[in-house]
């Protein structure tokens, strides 16, 4: 630590990381013009002094809950923090993908991706097929049946269910939702083709977004016909109601010798949006959030099927996700390069609490990290996937592996970001350490 005589700041490094990564909590003087790389070096050398076999790694530094993105002196000036006192610098592991892979070639644009299952990745494609990829390597299942591009897919069950099968719902531009059931213990050289066991019809235009409620009993879908429909997952073979049975019979005539398909209809419809509903999310049992091209985000009460809250942002919205602190912040992006975060608990104001504007084109997807309150991923037509931290306005990292528009993105296993785009690729950026 060469002491620069011009300006020095006394800092103390603290952390919540486990002991091998814990630096001695003594105040040391560091040059004031250090940026986070220099600070990172200091911490690494401190750690190496304590433990010789320490491997150097990048760290990020927090001052009063804000990530340091400028040289320390400028940061303190900008934030109006006194440089006289001992500055407490909390360090966390830097969030950046260590590895970027291009896996899983598709036949057409990848329009939907779901990474909520730790062992499988679910993708939807413009060729009307949804695919299941085991460990991001091999395609185990191909879910067929849609006659038009798939726009949204979801695992209904988080993990592998007791009977060893996965339940999946897909929404498509052919105006229907399909439910699939996949058996997980597969050991085949070629992907298994599976047809839907249930078709949910009712939308009069493309289904844009599908989501599952927390209890996994209900589905919700938003469509170009500007309605949101709620569907019951139940109605599988054993307790299919009369209507669906009847329809099955009718359907069986036309569908021929294929395996029998159930049909279901919506349990309720949420009316209120005036244009295409592009995104729906169901964070709590009683609440649905929806985003639409009519520039609004609406909150719906499931029981009363009523709109309870709304916010207008002035731009057509493409994506929406709930997460963050207490899973109550709403992130949404749309027809401009700004990712906005609202706090519906904040009374009186409808202005976004955070705005992230490093993208250069429409934002197509945004997702909160499943466990962190601060981390977001967003994808955009500019071909970039960006990682965000609420504690700084700059992106943590940008994944440039796509050559064309990125249409969807999600977290996978808590440490990877998966994204699909118009270059028919599914990209996986892994090794993102979020503690």
């Amino acid at each position, binding site marked *: 630590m060469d002491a620069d005589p011009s300006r020095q700041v006394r800092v103390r490094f603290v952390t919540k990381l486990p002991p091998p990564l814990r630096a001695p909590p003594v105040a040391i003087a560091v040059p004031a013009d250090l940026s986070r790389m220099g600070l990172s070096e200091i911490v690494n050398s401190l750690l190496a002094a304590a433990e010789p076999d320490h491997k150097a790694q990048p760290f990020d530094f927090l001052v009063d809950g804000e990530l340091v993105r400028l040289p320390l002196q400028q940061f303190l000036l900008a934030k109006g923090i006194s440089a006289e006192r001992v500055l407490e610098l909390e360090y966390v592991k830097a969030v950046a993908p260590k590895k970027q892979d291009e896996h899983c070639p598709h036949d057409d*644009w990848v329009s939907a991706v779901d990474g909520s299952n730790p062992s499988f990745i679910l993708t939807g494609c413009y060729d009307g097929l949804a695919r299941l990829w085991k460990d991001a390597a091999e395609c185990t299942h191909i879910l067929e049946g849609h006659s038009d591009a798939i726009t949204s897919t979801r695992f209904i069950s988080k993990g592998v269910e007791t009977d060893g099968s996965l339940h999946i719902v897909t929404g498509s531009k052919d*105006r229907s939702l399909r439910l699939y059931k996949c058996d997980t213990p597969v050991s085949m050289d070629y992907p298994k083709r599976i047809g839907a066991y249930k078709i949910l019809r009712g939308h009069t235009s493309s289904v844009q977004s599908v989501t599952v409620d927390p209890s996994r009993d209900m589905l919700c879908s938003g469509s170009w016909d500007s309605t949101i429909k709620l569907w019951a997952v139940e109605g599988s073979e054993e307790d299919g109601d009369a209507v669906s049975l009847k329809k099955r019979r009718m359907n069986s005539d036309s569908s021929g010798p294929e395996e029998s398909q159930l049909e279901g209809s919506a349990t309720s419809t949420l009316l209120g949006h005036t244009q295409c509903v592009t995104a729906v999310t169901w964070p709590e049992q009683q609440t649905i959030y929806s985003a639409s091209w009519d520039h609004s985000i609406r909150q719906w009460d499931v029981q009363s099927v009523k709109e309870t809250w709304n916010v207008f942002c002035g731009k*057509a919205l493409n994506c929406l996700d709930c997460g963050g602190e207490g899973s109550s912040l709403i992130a949404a992006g749309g027809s401009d390069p700004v990712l906005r975060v609202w706090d519906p608990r904040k009374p009186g104001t409808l202005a976004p609490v955070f705005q992230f504007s490093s993208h250069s*084109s429409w934002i197509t997807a945004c997702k909160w990290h499943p466990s962190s309150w601060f981390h977001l991923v967003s994808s955009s037509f500019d071909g970039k996937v960006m990682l965000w931290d609420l504690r700084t306005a700059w992106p943590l990292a940008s994944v440039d592996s796509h050559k064309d*528009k990125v249409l969807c993105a999600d977290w996978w296993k808590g440490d990877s970001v998966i994204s699909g785009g118009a270059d028919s690729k599914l990209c996986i950026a892994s090794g993102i350490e979020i503690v």
Partner: protein
Amino acid sequence: MGHSDGEHQLEGDDLSADDASWSDGVWSEDDDEGSGSGSGSGSGSGSDADSDEAAAEESDSSEDEVAPRNTVGDVPLEWYKEEEHIGYDIDGRKIKKRDREGRIEAYLKNADDAKNWRKIYDEYNDEEVQITKEEAKIISRLLKGKTPHGNVDPYPDYVDWFEYEDKGHPLSSAPEPKRRFVPSKWEQKKVVKLVRAIRNGWIKFDKPKEENNLYLLWGDETDTAENKRHGLSYIPAPKPNLPGHEESYNPSVEFIPTQEEIDSYQLMYEEDRPKFIPKRFECLRSVPAYEKALREGFDRCLDLYLCPRTRKKRINIDPESLKPKLPSKKDLRPYPKTCYLEFKGHMGPVTSISVEITGQWLASGSCDGTIRVWEVETGRCAKVWNVGGDVRRIAWNPLPERPILAAIVGHDLLLINAEVGSEEVQMRAKELLKIDEMAPQDNTDGKKPAVRWMKHEKLDGITLIHHKAVSNVEWHFKGDYFTTVVPSGDTRAVLLHQLTKKHSHHPFRKLPGLPVAATFHPTQKMFFVATKKFVQVYDLQKAQLVKKLESGFREISSISIHPGGDNVIVGSKDGKLCWFDTDLSTRPYKALKIHSKDITNVTFHRKYPLFASSSEDCTAYVCHGMVYSDLNQNPLIVPLEILRGHSSSDGRGVLDCKFHPKQPWLFTAGADSVIRLYCD
């Protein structure tokens, strides 16, 4: 004043005081004095009187010297009548009254005494005063009106001390004339005149402004105000440059160029060469005559003579103040400004685009012989039809449940099913597009029929074979009727077609020029036909001309109707756009010269107060065009944004522009075979 007056007065006074002179107080006082001094002499010795006289002669006023014995002052003496004293002397002692003599005694005394007539009784001091002879003489002289002293000559001979006889002075000894003492009548008249002038304000008493007496001693004479005041415009001659140090006869060494430098001047251009090369002379005597003096003098004269003496009049106006007051662009948001999405896939210039009414799909036609349908949200090409000919124009049926595209392919019109929407919608569309092979038309007049409805086998659609090339197609808002324009079709130039009945007719027989475009009123049964110079407004029900809008352009290229129906914008082939308020006038309300090349299309937004124009100069222009429901308020037009991005291909730029029906977005189709979406 006059001497004579004074003399008269004196005389008059004397006369009037004649009777009372003896009893007067003035006289008595004089007598007192005399008697005072006389009493002393009367009671004492005559030497006293003599000394008194001497004293009187010596001083001017004997009165001051001899104070009265009594000191009671000027009080009535009656107060002391009953007392034994008459007053008090200067020491405060009482002055006793003398024993009063009896009258007879006094009379006798008077008779005896020869001097008695000179005696006077002084009541104040209770004394008898004897007047001296001289005093008596003076008194008697005064009584006679003579000077007190006999040796005074009141009328001495006038001695004329001034000698004027030989002096030549104009003085006259004539008495002052009367007019010298009487106020002058002429002066009075003059005063009256002045008073009147002052009252009427002809004469002012404001001090005249003091002229500035300062002047620039070394200033330029030509610049003074005097020169400017002349009627002819005076322009000062331009000044010759002042000489510098190097032009001195003996400049410092550093000014003198070396021989190399002088040689290097030869390499320069004639006009770049320095005019003067400094030289050094020991003394002024050795300076030769300036060889160019005559030449330069002549040049200077020539300059002055040839100088164009015109005065430019400049008005200082802030150019900003001449601009009309427009609202700020910030307040007019949203409007398209940034391109976020490009629709790539066409292989030739995209000639026309049309957005589906819900805003989900975009159809485009291109010179590469394809019609494409794009997904607006992702820019993905959803469908391609190869129609085998240049697609000139494409229009999406405005009903969401009728996904039918009308496209002009080559010479004819093609109706195809866009194959979007649910099955039953597509079924219905298919049914609409079903046509039995046409029964032979009534060919009685022997002419080729204007339109034949034919089945298009390959694309499962309908072709409307026109008798001549079609240039434009436009749907009615209800989605059943549509119109096509055949510019060279004479009386059958504008055709109306009905989709459900597969029927066509041509109601407009007479048009003032070649028709360019035709369109329906967005809400009423009206019809607009744009010919090269005019826009004709027809009432479809009454089948008559309602209005004729005069654009003043050489050639109209496109027309768009405001969703309210009362305002029309027209784009022309010389890059101008004009806005008609049909309620206001048949002349343009505003004309905007915004493009440098032909305008290819103009369009209104259905929801937002926006309109746009696209041009061959590779730009599209977005303007704010607010129409107020208040009829008194004129539409507000504000240019907002120039959208660039398309590149020129074959000299053609942007060929079409359409607004998204629900979002403030603009699609532009370029000759560079790209469709761009500009978002707010």
